[in-house]
């Protein structure tokens, strides 16, 4: 991701107010609507502090009393992945989106929308469970024998570690999937009388029909390169070559352009693609 344009803090060009336009939605299946807010400008503001001010004010720019805008955040320093939203048309983390740089993009207002590929729960909060389900399906873990003491792990040399570390920084924010043309929104409505478990199972079945997305593919590369993680590499590649697997990727490379952690996603996809091809041939010959 490109670094934000540094702004001069003492520049007199700063506005006293910041206009914000938020795409709100009261719940799943409800209509979305725009709402305008205005907050006092402060130095070094980010979108989180704008939303905090909106919550404290609880009224629109026209003075209409409204419920605070709902959104997710956590670490406020771009490591937890909570706060993803579409800001001025680009999917990104709201904690590292600085008001000064956003106003440099568009001086009149800041536009906030929920992520596009995940179902809205309320306002800017979306349901990203599909992403975590993909990690289950792809067995993104190291299958150790026990948590008892068995001495150190396998030796991993420095170049290997330097390949793996960037991949392990993926914070499941979902930016890469939101920007991907092949990743289609999957949104189900709960049926009357359906139990939690039934609804959950139906959702998961639907997720498995859709594209897994760039981040989970990259996790397969990570775990398939770990000396112990490798032992279930075939299982991961099986999952990666099923419906919604790596073959769906059209190589548009939107993903890598928006990843806030600079994860080399296209490289991962290429590596996973080669592994998947070899794996499919192997499986074919086994038949």
């Amino acid at each position, binding site marked *: 991701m490109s*670094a*934000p344009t*540094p*702004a001069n*803090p*003492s520049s007199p060009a700063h506005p006293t107010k910041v206009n914000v336009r938020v795409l709100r939605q*009261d*719940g799943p299946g409800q209509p979305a609507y725009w709402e305008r807010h205005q907050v006092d400008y*402060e130095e*070094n503001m*980010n979108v*989180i*502090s704008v939303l*905090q001010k909106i*919550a*404290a004010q*609880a009224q629109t720019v026209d003075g209409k*009393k*409204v*419920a*605070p805008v709902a959104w*997710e955040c*956590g*670490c*406020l*320093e*771009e*490591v*937890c992945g*909570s706060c993803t939203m579409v800001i001025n048309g680009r999917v990104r983390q709201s*904690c590292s989106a*600085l008001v*000064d740089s956003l106003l440099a993009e568009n001086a009149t207002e800041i536009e906030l929308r929920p992520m596009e590929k995940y179902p809205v*729960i*309320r306002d800017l909060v979306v349901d990203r469970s599909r992403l*975590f389900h993909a*990690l289950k399906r792809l*067995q*993104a*873990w*190291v299958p*150790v024998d*026990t*948590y008892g*003491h*068995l001495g*150190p*792990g*396998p*030796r*991993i*040399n*420095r170049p290997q*570690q330097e390949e*793996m570390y960037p991949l*392990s*920084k993926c*914070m*499941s924010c979902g930016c890469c999937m939101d920007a991907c043309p092949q990743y289609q929104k999957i949104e189900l409505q709960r049926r009357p009388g359906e139990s939690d478990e039934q609804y959950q199972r139906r959702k998961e079945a639907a997720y498995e029909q859709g594209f897994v997305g760039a981040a989970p593919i990259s996790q397969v590369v990570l775990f398939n390169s770990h000396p112990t*993680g490798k032992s279930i590499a075939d299982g991961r590649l099986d999952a990666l070559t099923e419906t919604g697997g790596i073959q769906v990727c059209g190589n548009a490379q939107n993903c890598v352009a928006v990843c806030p952690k600079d994860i080399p996603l296209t490289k991962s996809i290429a590596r996973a693609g080669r592994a998947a091809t070899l794996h499919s041939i192997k499986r074919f010959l086994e038949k």
Partner: protein
Amino acid sequence: MADNQRVVIIGGGLAGLSATMKLCELGIPVDLISLTQVKRSHSVCAQGGINSCNEQTRQLGDSEWKHFDDTVYGGDFLQQQPPVKEMAYWAPKVIDLMDRLGVTFNRTFEGYLDRRRFGGTLYKRTAFAGATTGQQLLYALDEQVRRWETQGMVRKFEFWDFLGPVLDEEGRCVGAVAQDLVTMEIHAFPAAATIVASGGCGLIFGKSTMSVFCNGSAVSRCFQVGAKYGNPEFIQVHPTAIPGSDKLRLMSESARGEGGRVWVPRTPQDPRPPKQIPESERYYFLEERYPQYGNLVPRDIATREIFNICVNEGLSVEKGRMAVYLDLTHIPREELDRKLGGILEIYEKFQGVDPREQPMKIFPAVHYSMGGLWVDFAKSSDGGLQAGDPANQRTNIEGLYAIGECDYQYHGANRLGANSLLSCIFSGLFVGPCIQTYIKQSGGAAVTRTPSTLFDAAVSAQQKRHEDLLNCRGGENPYLLHQELGDVMTRAATVVRHNDQLDSAYAKVEELQQRAARASISDTGSWTNQNVVFTKALQDMFPVAKAILRGARLRDECRGAHYKPEFAMPSLTETDPEARRREAEQWCDRFEENNRRYLKSTIARWNGTDPDISYEDVDTSLIPPRPRLYGLVGAEIIEQVWRERQAKRKEQVATAGQ
């Protein structure tokens, strides 16, 4: 996998996740409750690393015992020593396990774990994964728990708020009540045992280096139904953070290590841009006051001086906000990029200012809570812990356990860097077999024998609280009250503490608490209502805030992070050798007298409106307390007197034993 064995865990940070995976391995199913996806827990913020004695340091004379010693010395001897000893001896095994789980630790060229040095020790004990060690450790545990989830051993309740433990007539904890943050439904979770692993409480101070999830609500909800809270007044403040309008982000100490200079303009709030202020009008207060150490004075001293300059001397570089300059602009750009690139990028990203061109604005920030829920331990014959004993990590409420940053046990009056990640994972792993024994002994009675009416009543009580809040129209704005609380707490109960300020802060917090009971909720809906959830958390901050203030008020001494200038131990002033010797003797007398009074755990219990404070003895049976003399004038002679006293005492014990 009988369901009457099910354990409920509140929180999926390092502590909660390691307990979850260990219990699953023991065949005990877990319900895991968290405010957010566990992968997003606050533990991801930890950058520096995790400590253990290792093969490299061993060859230089290090040992588990020395790690133990550094930890209790760093904590000013306020810890119960058996659990700390056990932790230090487990540390190498904890890191081995994390290594096996695939944590991408930095490596030496040959492929061994690389180590760095951290504060409070002479050895390179700290293993790290780039500048994101906490994130990497958390992910490895998260992956293991996901693995157990696919096997049906774990049910995750993410985006759920723990509202309180459920106690039966005998006062045993038989489960928890929690609320779904999406649907706002409230449910009971019957459990054979309940573990709280909810992390720190930085939000009580308004802004801190912690995540927004660290609001202390879970701990407060246990405290309010009778759980003891230990050492509330011990709050660690990090000297250098970046003041932001939403959060105080950590700025690593290495910036000063590489030559960064701290200063303020001599004219209060000088309006000129910093680069235009001439040298003669700059006050390099650390360099002037500590010519020997300069900007690299120990962490607590740097913190106190910066605070003092802003709060008491009014020299903050900004009006209405506290900040001093940390200046790197005299160092060549390429040198900065090579040595400090990563952390400078954080500053650049969040402040939109290039610290290679402009001095950074920094200020101390609340960083860690040493205190927390009081927990018991079972001492073994070798002075460590008795493995598998159900007393370990148990609160004073049977069936309710606490682990991780929310327990009070491992860090005493001050935590050493890179020891917290260790205590979290250690306590999580260690508690597993202890819970297993407890369930065996109690036969999961909590679940099978508790009448469902008890759980129904607990749910209705919480339902009522929720609805009362929704209907409350008292006119108070919860977000603004939170800011006020944060201001009061930050002024009175962080770096430097004065009794009169603590008294007035207590009165102010009392007033805010009453106003918070009259909060108006601007969202009265029953779907993803963050407004009401925040207000509930705010109301529950007050009992903990009061315990912090009262604990601090009653502790008339300086110990670790708790500093009252009025009661500081003096430097020696006599110059004549004999007089100086006598002065040192008196110093040691006073030190011992002070320890007799205050080397005790503060115990807070909630009486419904205020905390009652009492004191409990600290187990210092393994390493006798000794004075911390860093930077004190006369340290050598005090140390000599102290050593002679200790030797004499040993002799007496030896003769008495004959």
